[in-house]
């Protein structure tokens, strides 16, 4: 299978003017401007296969959006090579741009004063979409996104969620095989976020599109992405499945117990008794949470079941946010 996106040694350095604080600093900067190199993206290499949904993960300023913009041809890399949808993005021109969609959560293409349908019609002309295809695709997108009654309302009267949905429609009418989504759920309420996530999965399944997205919302990543690219300070720290990352970073698992059941009510169980099996994270009868080494989890569970009356037992990974925090902390240690 040929990759739809291939980045090799991708780097981007911005020159940023540095200025000392205060009036004196401002005057000095006027006559002798000093510049500092900011390494936004450093030597990033990865490949993405058609149909994958891949999430860029990282704190603000990590280089996620810069990478995305280089892949979409908006930014010229300082060094490295990229091929996306069969083109070098910044020389691909209109044929490349017909094969991608770029959705920016904070910068919208919908014409503010007009109903969204006018932007759709404009894109029909810009992308040379035949009338028949336009009608069919619009109907499909409107149904999938449940947009029935908003097409004729001026964009300025739409809710943020409705606007983002319309933004997706405008960006997908030309049926691009490769989607770049920068914070597509930014600022949306939970219902709207879920609607967008459901839509993206459905759209990928129907049309085999490849999706690259950045997001701050962990739910976006867990619900959508089969794979994550973890970026911090411009470096790619991890590339792979989310659960593998969790397994690698989280050296522990959590055993969640509900005491009681057939073997008695379990009132005699104490925190001290549980501590013999692992670290007690919380104990509020009848609920207890133990943390144990990952590889010990099955055996410890069996011993717990034998030792106590247990109504319910589950083995969980630590919360994903915690894993990510750990991963970034470790990534920084390795760098230093």
């Amino acid at each position, binding site marked *: 299978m040929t990759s739809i996106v291939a980045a090799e040694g991708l780097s981007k350095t*911005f020159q940023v003017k540095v200025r000392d604080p205060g009036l004196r600093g401002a005057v000095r900067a006027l006559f002798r401007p000093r510049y500092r190199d900011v390494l936004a993206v450093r030597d990033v290499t990865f490949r993405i296969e058609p149909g994958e949904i891949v999430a860029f993960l990282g704190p603000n300023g990590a280089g996620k*959006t*810069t990478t995305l*913009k280089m892949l*979409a*041809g*908006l*930014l*010229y890399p300082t060094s490295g090579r990229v091929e996306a949808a069969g083109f070098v993005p910044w020389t691909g*021109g*209109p*044929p490349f*741009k*017909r094969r*991608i*969609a*770029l959705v*920016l*959560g*904070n*910068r*919208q*293409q919908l*014409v503010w*004063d*007009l109903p969204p349908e*006018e*932007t759709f*019609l*404009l*894109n*029909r*002309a*810009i*992308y*040379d979409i035949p009338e028949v295809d336009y009608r069919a695709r619009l109907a499909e997108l409107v149904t999938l996104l449940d947009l029935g009654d908003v097409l004729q309302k*001026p964009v300025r009267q739409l809710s943020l969620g409705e606007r983002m949905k319309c933004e997706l429609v405008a960006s997908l009418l030309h049926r691009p095989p490769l989607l770049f989504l*920068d*914070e597509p759920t930014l600022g949306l309420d939970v219902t709207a976020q879920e609607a967008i996530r459901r839509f993206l999965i459905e759209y990928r399944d129907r049309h085999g599109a490849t999706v690259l997205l*950045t997001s701050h919302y962990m739910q976006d990543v867990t619900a959508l992405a089969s794979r994550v690219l973890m970026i911090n300070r411009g470096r790619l720290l991890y590339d792979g499945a989310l659960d593998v990352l969790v397994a690698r970073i989280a050296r522990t698992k959590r055993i969640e117990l509900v005491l009681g059941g057939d073997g008695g009510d379990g009132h005699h169980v104490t925190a001290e008794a549980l501590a013999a099996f692992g670290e007690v994270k919380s104990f509020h009868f009848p609920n207890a949470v133990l943390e144990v080494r990952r590889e010990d989890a099955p055996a410890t569970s069996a011993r717990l079941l034998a030792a106590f009356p247990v109504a319910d037992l589950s083995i969980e990974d630590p919360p994903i946010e915690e894993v990510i925090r750990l991963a970034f902390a470790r990534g920084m240690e390795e760098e230093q």
Partner: protein
Amino acid sequence: MIKRYAALIRNAWLVDLQYRASIVLWLLWGVTEPAIALGIWWAIAGDGSVAGYARADFARYFFAVMLINQLTIAWDSWYLDRWIRDGELNYRLARPLHPAHEAVAENIAYKARTASVILVVWLIVAAAWPAVRLPLDPGRWALTLVAVLLAAAMRFFISFTTGLLAFWTTRATAIMELHAGVSLFLAGRIAPLALLPPAVAGVAGALWFRSMLAFPVDLLTGAVHGADAIVRGLASQVVWLGIWIVAYRIAWSRGIRKYGAVGG
């Protein structure tokens, strides 16, 4: 490409129709400046003339300025400055259509709307006031049309290129303001170039300012006559248009590499 332009112009007009009051304001702005200039020269000329310009000549001149300025003016540096600094350029760069086409379409939409209204105003005034009537000379009108197209194209590239300076500086619109200020005198917006000191008029002719406005205006009112002068004026327009196109190409290709794609 025609379909794309039609769609872009249609959207520009739809947006305009949302803001009827602003159309009136823009129109007033377009009429006020030449009207004030005319008022001043009207008073100065009195019953005599200034450098060969009597009251009726001034009236014709400034009515022509009113029309041709609206047909050739370009606001693109303001739009581009915003696109670049606020990151609105991002989605425009992701579309298979060069952002300059959207700017050209906006220009056509704007010019068609304001110039048509000014033309109507002029016809009404001319019906009542013979001084502002122009001779119906098809050859002259055709030459003026060519000169207006060249001037409009040149002013577009000047404005667009200046707007592109926003890739490097946050003062792109200030540079355009400065240019507008200089052109007030050198392009003939405040007075016919014939009334300027010869040295200043010479600078206006040697640079692009006369080609921007004064030449097409003089062509329309008949102040420029003789095949020689007309050919020289048109040639100067072509040369300066070429120079600004080259400047635009350099600024675009360098700037787009420099672009930081603001936003996120």
